[in-house]
């Protein structure tokens, strides 16, 4: 007797919906075991992690603030992954977008006009696109593996930011702290409501709607899916693989750059050595948990944002390390990818072939 994976005739639509839910349940079970091993009451710990942050107005706003960049980056990444292009470097594109967009308020602090913000946002998008264009170019021209190049460029962008805020862009009146000057009011994204929530959340919403339309209704979206699933068939359809690599990287880089400048302009209001709690990497989980579907990503973005808040809550009230957040995110991605197998395969118990034949 052995377990065998048997291929289904078609994708199972039930499993496509059930798989992320199943992954979530498995993550919660594993999380409970982990908390028990850490000497915590699993029920209380899970409550603190996943429910408590939803009970106060300020933390709900904080949820939106954290979900917005995740969603914005993840819808771009979804286009990459659907087209079989592996952009792992959204964190770098986020960072470089933030740097490019901050050029205006830091180097030209006197330039205050209604044009300041739109220009900053456009420069942020352009910066992210530029950072994304590098691995795309290297792949198209030299066949370099984009997983490696895009990932390594994350560290380049982060170190560049670190150098900037400790060196040329350090605030002259900042008591030598490694921070840039604070942005002027004209360079700050308007808050929504009375808390920390800002206009960046609307960008995420718009991106979800726009990407839904592009992926479902346009020839471009069709091209993305065809080239991702069957490159040879894509060639047969007359689509260019290289152009798709460039398109996917520019789109996801641009959205990550927009997320970067929105975060800096809306939440932090200056450049600091670290501007992201790993949004660019967490967005990879968001993209897969959301089935690479913009609507799914919208929901998954909030779930992963909750894991950030829960991690903070667990630090404060349970005294657990902030690494618990990373562990939860890692488990979730692991289970999602594992459960996705069930969409195209079913598990079956088979008896081994006995070489008896008809003569034996």
């Amino acid at each position: 007797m052995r377990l065998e994976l048997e291929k289904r005739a078609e994708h199972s639509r039930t499993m496509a919906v059930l798989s992320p839910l199943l992954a979530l349940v498995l993550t919660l079970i594993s999380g409970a075991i982990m908390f028990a091993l850490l000497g915590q009451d699993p029920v209380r710990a899970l409550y603190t992690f996943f429910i408590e942050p939803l009970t106060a107005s300020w933390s709900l706003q904080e949820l939106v603030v954290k979900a917005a960049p995740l969603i914005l980056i993840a819808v771009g990444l979804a286009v990459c992954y659907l087209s079989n292009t592996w952009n792992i470097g959204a964190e770098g594109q986020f960072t470089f977008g933030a740097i490019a967009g901050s050029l205006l308020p830091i180097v030209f602090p006197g330039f205050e006009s209604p044009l300041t913000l739109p220009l900053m946002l456009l420069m942020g998008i352009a910066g992210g696109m530029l950072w994304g264009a590098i691995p795309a170019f290297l792949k198209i021209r030299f066949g370099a593996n984009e997983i490696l190049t895009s990932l390594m460029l994350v560290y380049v962008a982060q170190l560049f930011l670190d150098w900037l805020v400790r060196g040329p862009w350090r605030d002259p009146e900042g008591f030598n702290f490694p921070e840039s000057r604070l942005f002027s009011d004209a360079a700050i994204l308007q808050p929504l409501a009375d808390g920390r929530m800002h206009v960046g959340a609307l960008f995420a919403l718009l991106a979800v709607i726009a990407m839904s339309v592009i992926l479902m209704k346009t020839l471009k979206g069709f091209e993305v899916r065809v080239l991702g699933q069957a490159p040879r068939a894509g060639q047969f359809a007359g689509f260019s693989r290289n152009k798709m690599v460039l398109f996917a990287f520019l789109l996801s880089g641009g959205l990550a750059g927009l997320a970067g400048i929105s975060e800096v302009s809306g939440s932090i209001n200056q450049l600091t050595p670290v501007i992201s709690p790993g949004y660019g990497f967490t967005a990879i989980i968001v993209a897969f948990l959301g089935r690479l579907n913009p609507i799914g990503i919208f929901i998954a973005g909030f779930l992963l944002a909750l894991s950030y808040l829960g991690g903070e809550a667990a630090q404060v009230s349970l005294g657990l390390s902030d690494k618990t957040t990373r562990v939860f995110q890692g488990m979730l991605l692991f289970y999602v990818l594992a459960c996705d197998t069930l969409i195209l395969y079913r598990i079956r118990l088979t008896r081994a072939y006995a070489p008896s034949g008809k003569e034996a």
Partner: protein
Amino acid sequence: MTQDHETNPPPGAGTRRSGEVLLEARGITKQFGDVRANDDVSLVLRAGEIHALLGENGAGKSTLVKILYGALEPNAGTLHWRGAPVRISSPAEARALGIGMVFQHFSLFEALTVAENIALALPGGTPLRDLSKRIRSVSQDYGLALDPDAIVADLPVGIRQRIEIVRCLLQEPKLIIMDEPTSVLTPQEADQLFLTLERLTAEGCAILYISHRLEEVKRICHHATIMRHGKVVMECDPAQETAGSLARLMVGSAVHDLKRGAQAAEGGPRLELRGLSAPPDGPFSVALQDINLSVTGGEVVAIAGIAGNGQGELFDLLSGERRAQDSGAIVIDGTASGHLGITLRRRQGCGFVPEERLGHGAVPGLRLSENIVLTRHGTGDGLVRGGMLDMGLARRMEQRIKSNFDVRMSHDDPEARALSGGNLQKFVIGRELDRTPGVLVVNQPTWGVDAGAAALIRQELIDLSRQGSAVLVISQDLDEIFEVADRIAVISRGHLSPAEPAAQLTRERIGLLMGGLEEGQGKAGHAA
């Protein structure tokens, strides 16, 4: 052990048939979905014998060999090694018994040396220096000179194959399976290989030799088993046969009735190839050499040939998936089109059906309606307006193709992968015929398709041509070619013989042309 004596031939039945029975397969059956790749196949391999396994592509040779080498499990049947029943469930077990295999496509790491590549295949523990010595001595013994320190990337294919053979020999096998060993060799390299094989059999080794090259089989093999459609149709002594009779046994001669109708009135040439040449675009790709062909409206022209002689490369150039270097080498309806991409060629009224249905002709995970968009998004059918898809129209087209071409499915608009081979092929061809293309190029139109669907598809191809379209069929199936073609050309190692009227060609002659017998005589290939 008693079975041994029953299968032994009477004394004097042939000098080589008296060796000890090494491996015997009895009643092997292997089912893939609804295709029976091996149907009650039996085979006896004896020490000191080169045993040829002949058959067209799809006849089941590879499946049988994979079962013998432990890479596949049969659904029924038994294997016996020296008379005792054995179960070979992995290639490692096959090697432990003494069965070695030399693959058609090499599995070598180009960046490593010869000795390092061989070390990877052997059980660990042998110091590389000792191994190099063994490689030198074995390769010299068998006349297969090899430098163990050479980097594989620097070596030509003939030498690379030697590495595979020496790697196999180092395991001291009793039985060596060779899958088309000469398909990548020059005639001189092949001669060298034959000397090695004779040497091996003289030492009592058995060789199972898979090849399409019939002259070669006649020359070196002592016994032949011929397979067709998954069954053994004949065993013979190839020396007693002619290449022509072997070819006939391989391809069979079953004929279905198709309505041919009269050829349409001679139109002008709609598809012309003028001196089309292309270098190989990969290590296992075939160079195309000065191909000339003209297909007129109203006729079906077929290109026969054994797989891997340049058919795929030719198709890619015809479809525009690969551009021709010279735009005038491909002329469609009088317009030089070699430089155009596939979408522009479709706009000129061409339709294309590739050999591979899933993954090339259709995306497995997309619905049929979406797969219609795949080839028809740029052909002015109204599927795309201002960048937006009209999926409602695509679904109506899917319904139309489904009923016109009898595509059967369990529920409406399924994913392409859910269709059976025959139904998907009807869909993929129907998708193009639905446009009534002026030029249709089809590679292997009924590959792996059941007889009913095959007859329907062939009839559709003939009917299209009779409406004035030019139809070019690339096929390995001679039955099919004789059913549909008005004229036939044969491709062999990237050379195309001149197209001749089907009525004037015999199977034997095509078999000989496929075997490369008239290669190099180029356009003068009329002497038969």
